[in-house]
Every structure is written in C-alpha cells, then in structure tokens.
C-alpha cells in the first residue's frame, strides 16, 4: 500500500546541486558578497537530503521561472 515517494520527481521541486569550495568561491566573487548575505536553506531541508550537505555549503538551484526559461538561485546551508 505504501511506498517511499522520491520528492525530486515532484513538479514543485527544482534541481538542487551542491557546489564545491572553488565553485562556491567563484559565485561569491562574481556577486561580490559573503555567505551571510545569500538566502538560506536548512540542513534538514527535504530537497537536499541526498546531497549530504554540511553547514556552510552553497546549494545551486536551477528553477523554471515565469519570466525566463530558467533561472539560477543560490542558497547557503544553515543549521536547523
């Protein structure tokens, strides 16, 4: 009767990818900001469970946008 549902298949969930240290640094340099200034995502967030995130990781989110074909968004992992 029951089964595990893979939430990555849900239409509301965009693709999440974890950035490496260098990639993260490149992004931060590009926007000239620090990690404190970008939006957050919780460590316990359901969508990043498979990525084995750690505190301070930068998650890249590619999501469909109503005003553009695709947009890229960044969130930093915080405790919680």
């Amino acid at each position: 009767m029951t089964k595990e549902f893979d939430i990555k298949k849900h239409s509301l969930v965009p693709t999440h990818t974890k950035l490496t240290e260098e990639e993260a640094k490149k992004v931060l340099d590009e926007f000239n900001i620090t990690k404190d200034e970008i939006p957050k995502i919780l460590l316990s967030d359901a969508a990043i469970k498979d990525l084995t995130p750690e505190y301070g990781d930068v998650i890249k989110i590619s999501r469909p946008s109503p005003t553009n074909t695709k947009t890229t968004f960044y969130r930093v992992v915080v405790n919680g």
Partner: protein
Amino acid sequence: MSDVYKKFEEKLPGRVIEELKVEAKASKLTDAETTKALNDAVKEYEALLISPGESIGIVTAESFGEAGTQMTLDVFHLAGVAEIQVTRGLPRLIELFDARKIPSTPSMSVYLKSEHTKNEKSIRKVASFLKEMRLEEVSEEFTLNIMNESVEVDLDNKRIKDFGFKKEEILETIKKDLKNASVKETKKGFTLKPESEEINLSILYKLKESAKSTLLRGVPKIIQVLPTKKDGKYVILCAGSNLKKVLEMEQVEGKFTVSNNIFEVASTLGIEAARQAIMNEAVSVIENQGLDIDIRHVMFLADMMTQTGIVRGITRGGISGEKESVLARASFETPINHLITASLTGEKDNLKSVIENVMVNQPIPLGTGLPGLISKIGEKKEKKK
C-alpha cells in the same frame, strides 16, 4: 541560425529569445535582420529594467494593495453545490502572506496514476481509500454500561456493507488500536472492557471517545473527497490535507499532487517547493478574482518569505518583526510592547530605515540596491570605454 542568438544569450532572458525565434521564423528574417531585431530587443529590455534605487518594496505593496480593494472580502458559501469549500479572494491572500500555520480551508488536489483513472468506478475506489473513515461513521450507538463496567458499541450493518467493510475486519482493527481494552463480540456489535485495575466513569468515557475516533480506513485529516475532471485529467479534490501520507500512497501520481498548506509543502518537499507553492497559490487567487498583478511582485514576495530557509509571514512574528529599528517595529503592530521592551533593554535606533525617519521628520533613505558610498575610481573608468 543559432549563432545569431548565441551572442545575445547573456544580454536577454531566455524567454525573449524564444519568442523572437518563433517570430523570426514566421516572418522569414535573414540573419542580419534578426541581429537588428535582437539589438532592438536588448535596447527595449535594458530600458525596462529597474534602476538601482528603485523602491521595489513599496511598488509591490501598492500593486497588491490596489488590486486587493477589488477582491471578494468574504468567503462565499456555496450551499448545495457539489464543490469543496475553498477560501478565495482577500481572506485567502491574507492568510497566505501572513503564513498561517493551518489555512482556514486546507485542501489538496490528488492526481492518480493512469491505471487507476480508466473508469469512474476505479477512481471512486481510490477516493474511498483517501477519505478517513472512523468507527463512529459505521456505528449506531455507543453506550456506557456502568453495571458491567464496559462500553457497548452497536454497529450499523447497512453502512458497513455500503462502505465495503466486514465486521471481522473492524474488530481486528479495534483490537490492534485499543491496546488497553479487551474486545468481545456481541450480536449487535461488540463490547469494550478496560483492562486497568480501577475502573471509573472517566476511564470508561475516555475509552468510548477513543473507540469512536478509531481510524478504520483512509488518510487521517482528509475529511471530504470529490473526484473531478480538470484539464482532461482526473483529479480528486480533498478537503483536509495530509501531503506526506498521500504522496506515499501507491495509486497516487505524486508529481502534480499538491496541498494548499504551505507549511506542509515546506516540510515534505523543501523550501524551494514552498516558494513555488506560495507563487502558485497567490497567482491562482489573483486569477480567480479576475485581476492582473505582475508575476514579478508575487515572485518578490515569495522570495522574501522563504529567504531564511523557513516560511515566514509578513507579520509582527515574521519579516516585519525582524526589523532592526525599534520605531519601525513599533509602527507596525503592538507598539506599546515594543517600546516598553526597548526601553527596558536600552535598545538603540540608528534611524537607517524609512519609517523611523518619517517619525523624526528627516529625509528618508529610499530604494533597493543603492550602494552606501559612490566614488569615481580612475582605473574603472578606462575599462568602461
């Protein structure tokens, strides 16, 4: 052909390029003409971009505020209509942006896998598995028998048959669920006897109440189901919401199944899904009311609400409550509380934001994306050509 567009990928959003591609093909433009059109598009696009220092917050607020005056102010009650009651209009928009933990009418739309949508009968069957069914609904009477120190339950045989249960099945679930009571079958139904040493009226009463609400079938919290057809697909609309349990059901196509409870979406699908859900809900309310608010305002609000990784409403407990300035917080809601705590703890107000400067009659610092300091640097100037 595609090289022409490649150069502009950085300068124009993908959607504009896609639209131009279609148009160029339709009117059979040459490469040179397309480039000209693209250049014009870039010019238009850059002219439309907001400049640094534009007060986008207040523009968004006004965009919603004006349209809000045209909205339904109260919830419609559709008496006698086979529809599931859903809060619409301004009340829904308010609870959405206030991020209430539970919406006033929680609801879900559940999509089914194609093998279960062949005919109406199979859909109804799945729907009956969704709806929560408690013992109360198939019973005629619950009686407290003080003499025998037991609870007597009379089952309604007709209803049991109608809903496709068997008496044995029901007894089985009852035995499993009520561990601190012994179950004995009788002619009309069964009797429950508490297994504690001391038996008094309140124990019996509690047993009766827990027996009443024993879940026989279905998903908890789903109180009403309505199979309908939406855009050529069969959907089961549910009153009540339990996203996690429903997604785990075998018959359910999880991809499109959504709840209107934003917090439930956030906890089961993550913060990004919640952001998307806020947008979808807001847009559906706006469209339902026949209004037209630019999607960018909705996106901005959804971004603000999900910025910290959890869903926060635009209330004194959410975004507005986190303002640095005491005066700004006090001007929003419950001013006396804020002023008293601020004076007790000796808070400082640096007068950096709008409201506190209005209060003290000073020019206001206004606009989004303005740097704190602007200066001319020689080297940068050369790079600009």
